[in-house]
């Protein structure tokens, strides 16, 4: 049931149920107003970077503050310490300019850009390194990271490896969900904006299905490690 006639019949049944005879466009002022004091982050004595850091840590996201020039070495040292041998990375400018993939390669890891990997091969990665979304890469209010599929990396890269490393520029942190949704709405209006999946990540993959016992690393990364440029 997907032809225009079926659609019309379906919509007509909804219209009837609403007690009307034709579809009515809601008046602009009938939309509930999102009152700032109750929906927004209205007060904090921390700046956004600090707030993000503390809330992300509360969500069990690892956060390391690092000077940009030391970022590559720090990421490589962390991954080497975790025994990671196979790494995939996005092709974001920030990773290239900080030479993060090179630093990992120098440590002897097998390093591939996401677009050199087949979907199947990405399942064999032991870690991935991505940037956060350029439009709004982190949310201070919720302590979340935002990733979005697109030209720099696909959807699987940040999902299937057990460790997800994010290099986050502080300028990308937005205050709250209202800001993030506005950024998304604007991005969606761009001709190139459509089609991709946006994911707000608020911690490592986990489940509590079995007797409420918390187990991390179910189907997504069990570790999310943010290197926040200082």
């Amino acid at each position, binding site marked *: 049931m997907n032809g225009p006639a079926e659609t019309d019949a379906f919509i007509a049944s*909804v219209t009837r149920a609403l007690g009307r005879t034709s579809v009515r466009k809601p008046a602009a002022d009938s939309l*509930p107003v999102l009152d700032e*004091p109750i929906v927004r982050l209205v007060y904090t004595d921390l700046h956004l970077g600090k707030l993000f850091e503390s809330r992300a840590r509360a969500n069990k996201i690892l956060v390391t503050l690092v000077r940009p020039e030391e970022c590559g070495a720090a990421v490589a040292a962390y991954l080497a310490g975790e025994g990671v041998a196979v790494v995939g990375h996005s092709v974001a400018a920030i990773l290239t300019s900080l030479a993060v993939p090179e630093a990992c390669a120098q440590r002897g890891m097998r390093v591939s850009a996401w677009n050199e990997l087949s979907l199947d091969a990405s*399942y064999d990665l032991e870690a991935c390194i991505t940037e956060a979304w350029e439009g709004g890469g982190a949310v201070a209010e919720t302590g979340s990271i935002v990733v979005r*599929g697109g030209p720099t990396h696909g*959807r699987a890269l940040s999902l299937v490896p057990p460790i997800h490393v994010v290099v986050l520029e502080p300028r990308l942190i937005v205050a709250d969900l209202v800001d993030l949704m506005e950024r998304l709405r604007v991005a969606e209006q761009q001709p*190139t904006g459509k089609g991709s999946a946006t*994911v707000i990540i608020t911690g490592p993959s986990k489940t509590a299905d079995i007797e409420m*016992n918390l187990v991390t690393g179910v189907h*997504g990364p069990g570790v999310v490690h943010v290197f926040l440029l200082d």
Partner: protein
Amino acid sequence: MGIALDVLPESNAAGRTPPGYGLPTEPKMVFPADGTRFDFDAAATPAASNERLQRAVDNATVRQDTGRKLRMGELPDSNRLRELAGQIKQHALDYLDYYLLEFKAAAEARGAKVHFASSGEDAKRIILEIAKTAGVSRCIKSKSMASEEIELAHVLELAGIDIVETDLGEFILQINNDKPSHLVAPIIHMDKAAVARLFSQYFGTPYSDDPVMLTRQARAYLRDKFRSSDFGITGGNFLIAETGQLCSVENEGNVRQSTTTPRVLVSLVGIEKMLPRLSDLAVLLKLLARSATGQPMTVYTSIFGGVRAAGEKDGPEEVHIVLLDNGRTRILEGEYRETLRCIRCAACLNVCPIYRKIGGHAYGSVYPGPIGALITPLFKGLENYPDLPKASSLCGACYEACPVKINIPKHLINLRRDMVGRSMTGWGDRIVFKAWAVALRSEGVYKLISTLQKFELRRRGKNGWVDKLPKPAAGWTNVRSLPVPAKKTFREIWNKSGRNPENQ
């Protein structure tokens, strides 16, 4: 569509053997088929005396409810935020036809195909046809209450599609041939020993009841399924009219898998999940995870829709969004419209003294607890579920917990009123209440009855307590005793004291 109704495989829920998941064959739980009457007493009575079940349910509900209260307290004004969330959902329902059209146009601009399904049968036929046309057969399915409602997985399984539930709890239910008993924690009725026995049998591995081991085992098994899948099925927590996108929340990552690997993606969503704007998510997301599990946000909030963009290497090439009515417009029509605001957070289950006592299966439907007691009779007919509106103490805890402020107790009372209006109450009830009405209208009759009642209770009383009464009061005294009425009533003492102003 050219596909005939008889393509739908015959449902044989009793004793079925799903291909590849053959264990165990006897269903653990079967909900009544549409149009058949549900025997609430037969389900609830054994559940109410099942201590193991109550321990498991208590453990989970108390934790989730404690988390909810803690997290709601972090919000600047949770009461007004809930009010606003209710208004947003109500607005979307009040203009649902308009927003459905807006959603369809926006989703199709992203290359998705939007299908409208009037019934569960329609939805299953549409989805089977999609799978056939696309030639896909290895399906990974994430948790979706709409798909449970129409028993989608079962039908696809019988049609020969290798379908696997990928949410850990739902996977356990699938291999155990069981049904969910909670909206958020589907295996709340199982303890870890039960899961351990099942896995040991299913995978042929040594028994271990360590939740970490059990989760690892499921992860390894499901990972191969993800990798080789060509067909993904998801639900959706919200539909965004202005952008034609879906929003889905989860903690495990299996929804993300479903929207990443398979070539064909089908999302089955009830029409009431509509939100006008992306920014409305800022309100609803703040409440959903808090109300459900006491998390500020779920681990993954996916906002997706449409086919993979140019330059993308993964994500679906073919996207179908199936919007399900299945009784929803009927509810939209009348005074119960507000019940469609529900975002399936299960906060009302966790606070409910009845749910905590009998668990989810005793409600005879995939929607248990207070909200289930309300919407199941609306979906499946009051005549088939006449006991559910009465399965409530009307204490109001559900209304207080609801993040979209559905007045559940009020609507349950209205359903009881509907039953009286439709003469659905038993003749015994009717005679008793008729007599009660006569007594209340006449002071003389009322006094006579209360005198007789006092006399009878004193006659039966021993050591100040009445331990046993005949039917219909027997059910009450089976589990508690009644104190013998005082020698003198308050009114008698009051009148005698000389302080009653009416007598002066």
